[in-house]
């Protein structure tokens, strides 16, 4: 169970850091449809791919922290990036599973 505790702690810490970071970047009132943020999308894709496909506790935790960072951004931000990251990571996971 220790590994699950590490994962959930990584997600919570990543989300809090993401929230703090995004409020520092975007102080404006709520924006319903912000632009697609490419650097954040890269972080999300890399994070979720590590989380789903690495098979290593430390790398998975780092991946969840990165994924949580983007997912935990202030409301309205990070949604499309998270969706892109999750779709690519799940596709990669299924490809790797079928290829083996």
């Amino acid at each position, binding site marked *: *169970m*220790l590994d*699950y*505790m590490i994962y*959930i*702690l990584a*997600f*919570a810490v990543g*989300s*809090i850091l993401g*929230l703090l970071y995004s409020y520092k970047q975007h102080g404006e009132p*709520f924006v*319903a449809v912000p632009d697609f943020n490419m650097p954040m999308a890269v972080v999300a894709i890399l994070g979720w791919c590590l989380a789903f496909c690495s098979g290593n506790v430390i790398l998975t935790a780092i991946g969840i922290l990165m994924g949580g960072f983007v*997912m*935990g*951004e*202030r*409301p*309205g931000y990070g949604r499309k990036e998270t969706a892109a990251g999750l779709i690519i990571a799940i596709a990669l996971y299924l490809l790797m599973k079928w290829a083996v």
Partner: protein
Amino acid sequence: MNLMAEILIQVIIAFLAGSLLLGLHRKIMARVQKRPGPPIVQHLIHSLKFFFKETAIPKTVSKVFYIGIVFILALIWIVGVIAGPVAHDSLLIIFGVYAVYKIVEHNSGSSSGSPYGKLSCVRAVLSAATELPLFAAIVFVYLIVGSMNIGEIIAYQSIHGALIFKIPLAALMFFMLIITKSPYSPFAITKDKVLISGFETEHFGFLRGFMLFSESIAWYVLLWVFLTIFFGPLNAVGYLIGMIAITFITGFINATTPILSPNHSVMTQITIGAICFFGTIIMIFSGVVV
């Protein structure tokens, strides 16, 4: 693994997972109501924040009860974690935990000296109606499996299939309890907004922090028990998907349903409980449940 370490790890998981799920619950309710809603991690931040806030104790409180009750609240749900996810022990302990939780709600309201708390305390007695369907659901699980031990219930389901397909109405009764315990539930008469925050109204600072800590653990334990006794042996991904799905469903229900008045709430719970109880008995005696 050392038992104490196992308990500590499971309590931390229960607190974090419960907080994140309750945050998700708020987010879903907000999206249904076309609001942006707070971030998912907000409930966790909220819980932690209260531990660092100033704790004021009103003059009208019964001090020993007022302070002691929040620790009892945290303790009973930690017992719930030990009896459930850690030890896979008897369902009766879970029932006992829920029964004591009702007493804690009652005493927390009555010790505060606030009229809102006291009215919430009276409603806590009424809302004990939710325990009847819970007890009935546990009895049906016992009738089918022949044991109340969670470990044996899991073993039974791994051979005979998930209990949700055998006694769906008993599962519905348990689900009623989950809806009742969810935030902003139509049956949450003890936390009706006309009572401000109900039995929690006069608890500030770290005392409220302990209450939010306990609520998070309670949500996790209830979902864990429901998934375990009705959906058979699940792995971590199964629990994650199941908990998120139930949080989604309760979020949708609570976002679209107004809170009921106490008499309507109790009557609705008892009526649904009675229909499911007699329905399951008919299913058992007519041979639908083998």
